[in-house]
């Protein structure tokens, strides 16, 4: 990866990281979107789209409300795209198996990666205290400066989370690469089945949270109507 590509990926990471909480919340932070953006920058759009599909639904129903912090699926998706780009020369032989391995690794790391978000929010408490002190001195400027300083804190949190995921995932991949041929020989991977497992679990996690009447009827109807349409078409 060139320096320019690293710079562009860092920009994507910061912008999508800010979109999670600090700025606008336009869904740029959703894995499907930010993975594609990172993939476009790195010239691997289709694998990035695949990674986006795999991660998008997993924590969709962990709503960004109040003090709730969902696992950092934004940086996990970008991290997975970076790892695919970094290890691309070694991936050709077992491409889909490695993508599955990478996504599992970043999914585990995303759970830990949310610590950076917690850290940023605690750091912002200091900014708030400073703003209060400033207002006691009737300094309006201190209020504004400390508020917008929060953007810098959230940006750092996004970058640290990405760094953590790329470093952790890279180490796991470097270690796991040696055992991959043995694993694939033992369990020959039917790619489309394995790739479908991720959105499949995502759908299950959505159904767990969506408490609506007649869920089973609606779901099964949607399933069979689409299935028949796909068979006909």
């Amino acid at each position: 990866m060139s320096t320019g590509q690293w710079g562009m990926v860092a920009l994507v990471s910061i912008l999508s990281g800010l979109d999670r909480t600090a700025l606008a919340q336009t869904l740029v932070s959703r894995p499907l979107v930010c993975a594609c953006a990172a993939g476009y920058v790195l010239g691997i759009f289709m694998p990035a789209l695949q990674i986006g599909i795999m991660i998008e639904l997993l924590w969709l129903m962990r709503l960004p409300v109040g003090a709730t912090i969902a696992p950092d699926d934004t940086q996990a998706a970008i991290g997975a795209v970076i790892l695919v780009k970094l290890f691309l020369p070694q991936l050709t032989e077992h491409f889909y198996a490695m993508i599955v391995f990478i996504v599992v690794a970043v999914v585990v790391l995303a759970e830990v990666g949310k610590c950076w978000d917690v850290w940023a929010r605690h750091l912002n408490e200091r900014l708030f205290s400073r703003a209060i002190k400033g207002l006691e001195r009737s300094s309006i400027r201190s209020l504004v400066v400390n508020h917008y300083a929060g953007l810098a804190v959230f940006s750092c949190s996004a970058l640290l989370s990405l760094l953590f995921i790329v470093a952790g995932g890279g180490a796991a991949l470097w270690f796991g690469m040696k055992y991959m041929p043995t694993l694939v020989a033992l369990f020959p991977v039917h790619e489309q089945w394995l790739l479908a497992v991720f959105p499949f679990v995502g759908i299950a996690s959505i159904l767990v949270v969506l408490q609506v009447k007649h869920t089973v009827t609606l779901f099964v109807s949607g399933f069979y109507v689409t299935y028949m349409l796909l068979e006909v078409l």
Partner: protein
Amino acid sequence: MDKNPQGDLTKWQLVRLSLRCLFLQSSWNYRQFQGLGWSVTLLPSLTLLYGKKRVAQVLRGHLKYFNTNTFFAPAVAAATLSLEAEKSRGEQVTIEPSSYPDVVMAPVAAVGDALFWGGLRPLFSVLAVGLAVYGHWWAPVLMLALFNIPAGIFRVAGVWLGYHHGASVVLLIQRWKLADIAVALKRCTVVVAGGLCAALVHQTQLDLVWSVVSGAIALIVLFLTVIFLRKGVPLTVVLIGLIVSVTAVDKLLL
């Protein structure tokens, strides 16, 4: 910035208020949640209404715990400023402007979160994944557009309605029956999720008999996964378990 002698905000100032609301959570913290962002959002308009000398004193009333839905925040901010404008003109106000957000933030957050985070986001997300599964590169762009059009309308129209209806804007929001719309969207999400599940199974491109059998198996496995997740098994454990099961079945039976 000098005090506005008419004690009124112009269209342009309302648009700027709406833009400042995009930064409402920039300093989100565990002590006051959106409190600091809330006071900074109101600051330029309050300076216009009260003048530089009095604004610090007025702001002290607003710098406290605040937490609401970000898409409905512009309406609440504009309604608060409408009350502040009335107060700055010396008119009688129905509720203290600094107390108004305390009263409305929770119900507005409940409606907004249900509509945007519980209704629109899952629906468009599942739809986009369904399209992306078939390799449509524009699926993420569609998701962004579908979500941000209503979000943008609420952000811009919210400021306008909030300022002109004042404190009664919450009654207007209540009349729109957004909670019912959110429930309808959730039902649509369940149907679309069923469709996505069918698309995932159909992609395996097996022959007709196997295709029907795998469809039935997929539904059974899905409902078992739902049961596991409901029992509190961590998502990562379920995910890894399912991957191992699929590879084992693939190796042993197919």
